[in-house]
């Protein structure tokens, strides 16, 4: 018995020692900042992992790198995994020199202290619309700038609307009437994404914001009216209840297949839509409640940031890359190639005239609002409340007013 006990103790101490081994190794890993020698290589992490974005961004990065005299070492990760990667790199102190973030995540990451303010590097933030700047600002300092942005609008199938004798709707009543008229057989009038993720929230925001709804408190009449619109559309059968599980890609598939005459979607779908020769589509603003309201879209797009790597020389070079990515020339080129909108308001007129298909979006982007503009790091919780309320209302578990109230209370 005695030998067994001492053996167990020996085992226990070995196990503890071995468990400590990875901890010790982690401690050894902290790298010291390099000397202020010439910088030859910068690391970049982004989520443009699929074509054509991958090549477009890659070429632009390489060109900016050459301009600054550095080579770019780039890592692309799938979109959903970017934040996990960033957190892993933050904890192992291996953040890249240039980091791309989706704009609603910027405030979260900036709040950790992992990013350097761009104003430290004298990067100009002139001529950016307020929405874009507020997305990239944390505690009054700008941490990220987005060269291209996007928002959502209403696409409609020209042929189907002409056949039904319907004009593209401008108000909510017109929308309801048009959708009802366009619903027949296997065809629904309208398709949108109401799923249980931030995409559902994203698609709901223009309806909520244009009506005066406020994301800080969603249990208000304005937001209730917007949710009532959605509920009415689904209940009346103008929108399929499958919308509860659709992504924006599914919505596009429905539209392309002719199963929905109108859809709420963004400009990135345009290449796919253009590939269908039989499909003639048009774009208008998302309808507002009445003529007194203006359309307000949510701001999409990615920002480029400079993480705190402790290496002053590299950070300065990284800032040059960020500034280069945001130059007028690159904004116009990337926006045109990727079917998004250049951020700077001074470029809007030129861009709209050169790319008529994106004209409506260019207009909308001027007034687009950042999701994290008011709530900052508290946005994810509120976004969750919004799609929870949408799901409860659309599945008839609660009336829109009650659903919003319950969700707001948490």
């Amino acid at each position, binding site marked *: 018995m005695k030998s067994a006990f001492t053996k167990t103790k020996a085992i226990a101490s070995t196990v503890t020692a071995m468990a400590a081994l990875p901890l010790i*190794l982690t401690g050894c890993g902290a790298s010291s900042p390099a000397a202020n020698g010439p910088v030859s290589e910068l690391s970049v992490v982004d989520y443009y992992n699929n074509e054509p974005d991958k090549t477009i961004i890659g070429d632009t990065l390489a060109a900016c790198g050459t301009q600054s005299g550095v080579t770019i070492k780039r890592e692309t990760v799938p979109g959903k995994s970017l934040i*996990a990667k960033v957190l892993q790199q933050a904890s192992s102190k291996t953040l890249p020199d240039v980091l791309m973030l989706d704009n609603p995540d910027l405030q979260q990451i900036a709040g950790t202290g992992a990013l350097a303010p761009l104003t430290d590097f004298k990067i100009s933030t002139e001529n950016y619309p307020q929405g874009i700047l507020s997305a990239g600002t944390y505690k009054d300092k700008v941490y990220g700038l987005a060269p291209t942005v996007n928002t959502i609008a209403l696409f409609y199938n020209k042929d189907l609307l002409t056949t039904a004798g319907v004009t593209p709707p401008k108000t909510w009543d017109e929308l309801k009437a048009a959708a009802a008229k366009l619903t027949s057989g296997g065809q629904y009038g309208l398709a949108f994404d109401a799923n249980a993720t931030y995409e559902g929230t994203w698609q709901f925001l223009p309806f909520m914001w244009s009506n005066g709804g406020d994301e800080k408190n969603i249990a208000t009449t304005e937001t209730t009216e917007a949710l009532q619109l959605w509920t009415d559309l689904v209940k009346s059968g103008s929108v399929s209840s499958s919308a509860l599980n659709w992504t924006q890609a599914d919505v596009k598939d429905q539209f392309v297949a002719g199963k929905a005459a109108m859809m709420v979607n963004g400009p990135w779908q345009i290449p796919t839509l253009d590939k269908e020769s039989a499909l003639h589509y048009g774009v208008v603003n998302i309808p507002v409640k009445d003529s007194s309201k203006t359309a307000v879209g949510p701001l999409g797009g990615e920002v480029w940031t400079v993480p705190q790597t402790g290496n002053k020389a590299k950070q300065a070079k990284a800032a040059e890359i960020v500034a280069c990515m945001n130059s007028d020339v690159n904004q116009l080129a990337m926006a045109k190639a990727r079917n998004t909108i250049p951020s700077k308001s001074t470029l809007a007129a030129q861009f709209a005239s050169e790319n008529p298909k994106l004209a409506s979006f260019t207009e909308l982007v001027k007034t687009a609002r950042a999701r994290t503009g008011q709530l900052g790091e508290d946005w994810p919780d509120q976004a969750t409340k919004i799609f929870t309320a949408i799901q409860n209302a659309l599945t008839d578990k609660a009336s829109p007013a009650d659903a919003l109230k319950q969700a707001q209370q948490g």
Partner: protein
Amino acid sequence: MTTNTQTDTVAAATSRRNRPGPLKAVHGQWGTRQWGTTALAILFLAVMLFPVYWMINASLQPNGTTLQTSWLPLSPDFTGYATAISQQGRNLGTSLVVALGSVVFSLAVAAPAAYALAYFKVRGAGVVLFAILISQMIPGIVVANALYTAYNDLGLLNSIPGLILADSSHGIPFAILIIRAFMNNMPASVIEAAKVDGAGHLRAFWSIVLPLSRNALITAGLFTFLFTWSDFLFALTLTTTDDVRPVTLGIFQYMGAYVNDWSSVMATAVLASIPAIILLLAAQKYVAAGTTGGAVK
């Protein structure tokens, strides 16, 4: 059933070799009853594998979805396959190497451990079993995060051995549990007889136990292969470049933040299944019946 009854029954019954097969006079000639069973099996499989067929159908559609398709892909579009073949060949190779390496490593570590847990009344066997079960309950992301830091320091990122080691974390605990469960049925008398004949632990293990546990090893190896083949988390976490990229991660090349190229995704999945299913077919052939029965004789 205790081992005594087993050996008695074995001794009492006739040798397996002399027992005729069911209703077949010559090997390879099957009766209608057998073909009827095959038809039933094909029906089961058709129902079970319909989603796989649907995936193939989707891979042959121009936009990669089955929204507008009929039941059969009457006008197949092979662009997805062209993309997949040109871009994923290397990733497929990486996946195969990592999966096979993981099988070898996992079995090498797990089989002796399972044997020890099944036969030696080692103090702390219960603790080890408990630890193995706990390890299966840990969410993968927790392990991946810890490994990233360690691998980064050790320089094991973007390496095939690193991936093999990491992916074995799927296989080793599972293999130990399965092989041990199979080994519980093995008659201890065979091993003891070998020991009495003077074989050391290692000899007994290598020459007696391993061949007896063939079914266990194949089943465990099979699932280690499958776990590793379909692993995405470690592939994502422990690689930062295109050099070493298993096909599960390669598929995500076609899934961007905004737009997905489903036909390439589906085509890659179809292509990736082919070498794997061939390997599995080969392995399954070896899961034979009644190995213990014959050996005891």
